[in-house]
């Protein structure tokens, strides 16, 4: 038996499937996919629960709470729960479920985790300025041809490439 070259799906086929999921989302709901918005729901919910007075006084939380009476009952939060389940089932089928730290060959797991937190921090922060992340701004923005979404996309990849040289030790 010949071994399959790649354990992952053909990338063009996966892209078409992903595009169809996005298209279905637009057709059914009139909006695109997202991810960082769910993190925002969680943060606002947590802050409102821990420090309600602060949440009432700070503009960011109070505006968000006014627009979303129940942040965790939001579309994006449910969608991200779905992503979690979908990813899990896919990993189960393809036998990839395993607790591990994926890292470049020249760094320790500890460095990798620290960098992941820092990277996540930057992404979380940037997604607020960009009004969405790779999913909500770049991918969905591209589907509906939003100028802002496409500019954010170019900026994400442009900045990634510009900085790649300086962080090469992390990956290669």
């Amino acid at each position, binding site marked *: 038996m010949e071994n399959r070259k790649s354990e992952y799906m053909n*990338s063009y086929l996966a892209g078409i499937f992903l595009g169809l999921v996005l298209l279905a989302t*637009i057709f059914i709901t009139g909006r695109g996919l997202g991810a960082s918005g769910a993190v925002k729901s969680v943060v606002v919910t947590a802050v409102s629960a821990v420090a309600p007075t602060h949440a009432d006084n700070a503009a*960011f939380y109070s505006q968000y709470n006014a627009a979303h009476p129940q942040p965790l009952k939001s579309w994006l939060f449910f969608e991200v*729960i779905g992503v979690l389940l*979908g990813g899990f089932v896919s990993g189960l089928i393809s036998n990839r479920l395993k607790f591990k730290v*994926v890292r470049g060959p020249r760094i320790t797991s500890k460095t990798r985790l620290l960098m992941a937190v*820092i*990277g996540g921090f930057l992404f979380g*922060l940037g997604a607020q300025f960009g009004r969405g992340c790779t999913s909500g701004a770049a991918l969905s923005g591209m589907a509906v*041809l939003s100028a802002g979404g496409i500019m954010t996309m170019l900026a994400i990849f442009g900045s990634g490439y510009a900085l790649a040289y300086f962080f090469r030790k992390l990956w290669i």
Partner: protein
Amino acid sequence: MGPLVPEIIGNELNLVVALLLGFGFGFVLEQAGFSSSRKLAGLFYGYDFVVLRVFFTAGVTAMIGVIILTHFGWLDLSLIYVNPTFLKSALLGGVIMGAGFIIGGFCPGTSVCAAAIGRIDAMAFLLGTVFGVFAFAEGYPLFVGIYKSSFLGNLYVFDALGVSRGLFAFLMVAMAIAAFVATTIIENRVNGRKSSGYTENRRYFALAGLGIFLGFVMIFMPDHRSRAIAFASGADWQVEAESINRMTIDELAFRLIKRDRTIQLIDVRSPDKYTALNIPTAVNIPFDSLANPEWRDFLQKKGVDNIFYADGEETALRTAVLSMHLGDNTAALILKGGFESFQENILAFSDEKSSREDFTEEIYEFRKRARTELDILRAEAERVPEPVKKPRTIQGGC
């Protein structure tokens, strides 16, 4: 037809839909290999461009899909959420996210997916995003200036560049294909491989080619709504107008007085003329705004005949043809003799019998009564609020 939310799918069911679509999203991301941060980072070092391929294929697929659905009138673009453009904030955010990508190896969506299959670095990344959002929230008073500056509206990229949607979509597909070819060459060079492995992918190329071809046919052909408007504004509309029936002024008056609910009146004159005087219960929809999506529900009401009237018959006929082309109720009628005839013979019916030799006693009595009855109807109709026009609110964004 689309989007289905909130008219066809309610808000509660929408959350179930969110869960299902999210499932599909997560499943495909994981299958594509987006759960591996090394694969994601490979994009920036040339050893693995899978992210670029999946990402652009998905974007182009969805873009062409949106164009096809819009073309057939199945999707109403004016109801789709288009991310607003705040120039500086969008660029700044993108630059920060790019740094986050190269340092953290994920973006939020892929990190959720990778965390689901047990990648601890993904969990750390997610934790980081929580801190990042929190930092923005706490620093909001500092950031709000740049966050809200240089607002350009819900701008389309092709409008920003001053080209048509079709041309931009064409360029986008061309760019994606060029990128696919270039990255494969780079990838093979970096990894020291020779063959591209393309031969086994022929089926996929055939499929993609078909989709792209279909997309282009649609892109360069006007959509459903534009075609209907072009037809009704062009020279051939009269052929179809021949099949449209005319309702006499007396029949209309009779059915209005009977409070007949199987007809609805559409006044296609200008809003000024409509406000000055109209036939009771008529709704004002001039020719130019008939194609607007907010009128479809009203004009497609089941079991109801639409009766169009204007000054004279020609504008009413033209509008009825347009309405039928837009898929509204097929039983469109127009008022015989137009508004003036109704106004002169019914609304402002003169008691002087002498000037009217051409009709019977019966009609004389009817019209006299109709004049008063229609005044009562008008008073009633004015108490009822405007029946239609409910622009749907668009929700979206992260």
